[in-house]
């Protein structure tokens, strides 16, 4: 690596510079493939660029070329069938994480901080390296919709199972299955205090969020009495036992269940149905007319626009109703719509920015403390949003906090992030640039799909000093990653 750098720098006559270009941020573990910068890239056509910019964490030249070749619709259809996409390379990277799919019977012996780190690292690695990019974005959506903070006592043990058995398992499945899986997920029951929801002392925390955040939305017209009745349906569902601090699997304790008659949203549930109450609650929520609209609007907000176009929400809700909540079908309606093609840009959330930058530069990552900390500073500590509503999904919530984005850009371009390996000299070589201005233009087409307007790139080159030194190359890269153009998707 150092030899080739030397040769390269000599070739472009830049040896006098600091010589800090490239170099791996760390020695990656043996089973982790190294960085692989793209070898060639061309300016992309606008529709394909926009599609991949929104439906992946960051468009890569080979994926762009593939999408261009098979067409936008076929590419989206392929991404909507993730199991048909070979993702062995990503699976290999994930193999180093022991706890992502660890059985609940042994996971309680692992330190929570380790579990939290692996869960966050796993999500970062998938966002950067999975070829099932749309699937990962949809997983991120449901992780927010059914948000569970691993910072709450005991939850770190339970969320890994929720991640693969609830969110990842049903992300493109049927909503009724997804909801049921979440309603019986130990992580959710503990996170929203259902273990403290007893017949004698009902706790409404989970019931309220189930109605407000997971199914109907706050404007659906339900009342405090409905929340109370839903809480009573959920009494007795808990996890493990109190002595082991909620370590274990979900369980129904009949003695703690309120078995009296209940009325929810105008529907009566007779007394004496025990564990059947929660199934009835599930059915009532699924049948409520507010549900398709609520879910559709949230999906449209994520993938199309902060202010969801009403026509598209209505179309997606109609698909939801017609298919009984087939989430692939609902997403197909949204992603193949005319509205998404014409949608205004959305501000990148931090994970999108971080994973996309590593991805587009052809970097390699295993996650790590630096990236986790960067995401925290950026405002998206993965699986740790403090309230159950998930990370916000509007530009306004994110766009006031620019400095951490600039700091991330500087650190990535300066190769200062442990856990990330990049090969910047390889990238410079592949760009064919031998002057700063060309480098800025080539980076522009790699990062934004097209070079910046000539006056802008010219001004940037002259501000940086003009010379084609390795520090200027890195500074130009930092400036472009920090640029407003890179904050939108």
């Amino acid at each position: 690596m150092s030899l080739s750098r030397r040769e390269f720098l000599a070739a472009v006559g830049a040896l006098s510079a600091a010589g800090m270009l490239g170099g791996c941020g760390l020695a990656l573990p043996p089973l982790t493939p190294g960085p692989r910068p793209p070898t060639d890239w061309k300016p992309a056509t606008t529709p394909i660029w926009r599609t991949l910019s929104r439906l992946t964490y960051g468009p890569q030249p080979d994926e762009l070329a593939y999408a261009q070749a098979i067409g936008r619709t076929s590419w989206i259809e392929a991404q909507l069938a993730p199991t048909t996409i070979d993702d062995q390379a990503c699976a290999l990277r994930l193999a180093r994480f022991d706890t992502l799919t660890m059985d609940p019977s042994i996971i309680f012996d692992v330190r929570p901080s380790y579990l939290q780190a692996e869960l966050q690292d796993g999500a970062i690695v998938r966002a950067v390296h999975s070829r099932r990019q749309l699937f990962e974005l949809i997983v991120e959506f449901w992780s927010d919709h059914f948000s569970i903070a691993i910072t709450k006592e005991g939850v770190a043990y339970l969320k890994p199972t929720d991640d693969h058995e609830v969110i990842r398992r049903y992300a493109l499945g049927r909503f009724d299955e997804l909801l049921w899986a979440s309603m019986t997920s130990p992580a959710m029951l503990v996170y929203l205090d259902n273990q403290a929801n007893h017949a004698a002392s009902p706790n409404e925390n989970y019931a309220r969020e189930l109605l407000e955040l997971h199914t109907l939305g706050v404007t659906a017209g339900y009342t405090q009495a409905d929340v109370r009745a839903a809480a009573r349906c959920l009494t007795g569902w808990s996890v493990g036992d109190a002595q082991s601090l909620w370590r274990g699997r979900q369980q129904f304790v009949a003695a703690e269940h309120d078995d009296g008659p209940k009325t929810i949203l105008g529907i009566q549930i007779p007394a004496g149905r025990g564990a059947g109450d929660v199934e009835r609650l599930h059915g009532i929520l699924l049948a409520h007319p507010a549900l398709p609209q609520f879910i559709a609007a949230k999906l449209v907000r994520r993938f199309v626009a902060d202010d969801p176009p009403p026509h598209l929400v209505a179309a997606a809700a109609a698909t939801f109703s017609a298919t009984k909540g087939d989430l692939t079908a609902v997403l197909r309606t949204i992603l193949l719509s005319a509205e998404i093609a014409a949608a205004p840009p959305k501000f990148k959330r931090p994970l999108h920015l971080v994973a996309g930058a590593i991805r587009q530069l052809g970097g390699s990552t295993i996650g790590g403390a630096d990236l986790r900390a960067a995401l925290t500073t950026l405002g998206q500590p993965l699986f740790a949003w403090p309230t159950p509503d998930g990370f916000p999904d509007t530009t306004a919530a994110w766009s006031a906090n620019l400095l951490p984005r600039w700091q991330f850009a500087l650190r990535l371009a300066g190769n200062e992030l442990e856990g990330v390996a990049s090969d910047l000299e390889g990238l410079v070589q592949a760009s064919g640039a031998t002057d700063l201005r060309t480098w800025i233009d080539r980076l522009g087409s790699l990062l934004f799909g097209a070079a910046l307007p000539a006056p802008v790139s010219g001004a940037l080159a002259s501000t940086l000093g003009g010379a084609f030194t390795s520090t200027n190359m890195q500074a130009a890269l930092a400036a472009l990653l920090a640029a407003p153009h890179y904050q939108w998707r």
Partner: protein
Amino acid sequence: MRFTRRALLSSAASVLATLPTWMPRLAFAAPETAPRGGTLVCVFLRGAADMLNAIVPHGEAAYYRQRPFLAIPRPDDRQVAARLRTADLDGFFGLHPTLAPLLPAWAAGHVALVHACGTPDESRSHFRAMELMERGVDGDTGPASGWIGRHLASLGDGGRSPLRAIGFGTALQRALYGPVPATALRSIADFHLGGALPTVPTLPTALAGLYAGDEQLAATAQSTLDIVARLERLDPLSYRPSGGATYPESELGMALRQTALLIKADLGLEVACIDVDGWDTHIAQGGSEGLMAGLLSDLGAGLAAFHADLAAQIGGVTLVVMSEFGRRVTENGGFGTDHGHGGAMIVLGGAIAGGRVYGAWPGLEPEQLIGPGDLAVTTDYRAVLAEILQHRLGCPDLESVFPDFAATPLGIVQTR
């Protein structure tokens, strides 16, 4: 190369030495940034602090009956060491012994307490209560922005300092949400554009140029660059507190210390939000010593240092301590306390009628409690905040800050 504080300092020094073109303009552009009113510091104890053990109703027999293990001993309880007893304030209430560092400020009339205070919300849910409290509303309807955000908006465009409103922490406090950009930061020492790259001094100019073309982001970008430039000049790491103040080595201590620095530097700071985690003491809460005593000790030492450090500026500063709700009067089987209702607020400042415990005390006898056995709320938290906003921060439109809330003034703050 790893980034270190040393690297920050050297990069800041090199920026100063080279004086890039964007610096002088900022260095001399300060007149519009002076705060229009005072400065508000809002310390939020996350997790529902047990204020019954912080501001102890030692005159209540029921308090000792309900908390055989956790109660803080009476001021005259000779069975325990003096350092473990309640520090009496007025013969009925007293401070947890670890809050004793606040006694000088109390004696100076710079500390007021409001007991049985809180939100009308009875969900006993942290999320719910915090959300409502930070939005300053009663329920799901009403604005999604925060009460501080709306206060800042109500002032029009008077305060234009990029440091007008800051929140210490990783994410911006909901209370600060609103049309006026507020800044989240973990430490002002992190607020820099330093790095290993030698060309970093040109980056602010490069960014200013790039962002000038983005209508939605240009103003935020320019404010951010301004803050970075100003903080570089302040050199936060070399700050020495006045008045012999020693801040505790904690997140709270660091945030208070940096807030004091910003106030003294007169950079236009109007509001600072500081979060303190760890108050959800369901298990092993402790009494005069233990888990919560450690948290209170940090709080007491931090507030006392802040008061001493800002002795010369305290007339323009008001600090409030609040939490989403209080805790159950009866201790639970795990030597902790469960979610309750009424809590208390601490107000510290130089222009308040301190040295008093405000609020009607509802009592702790069983028939005086509400819900599953909780202290009632007799003073809405917004009554306290409204007074401060109106009289200390010049808020012209309380209705926009706390919609549908009619405040009954308690007379805690002096009118300007």
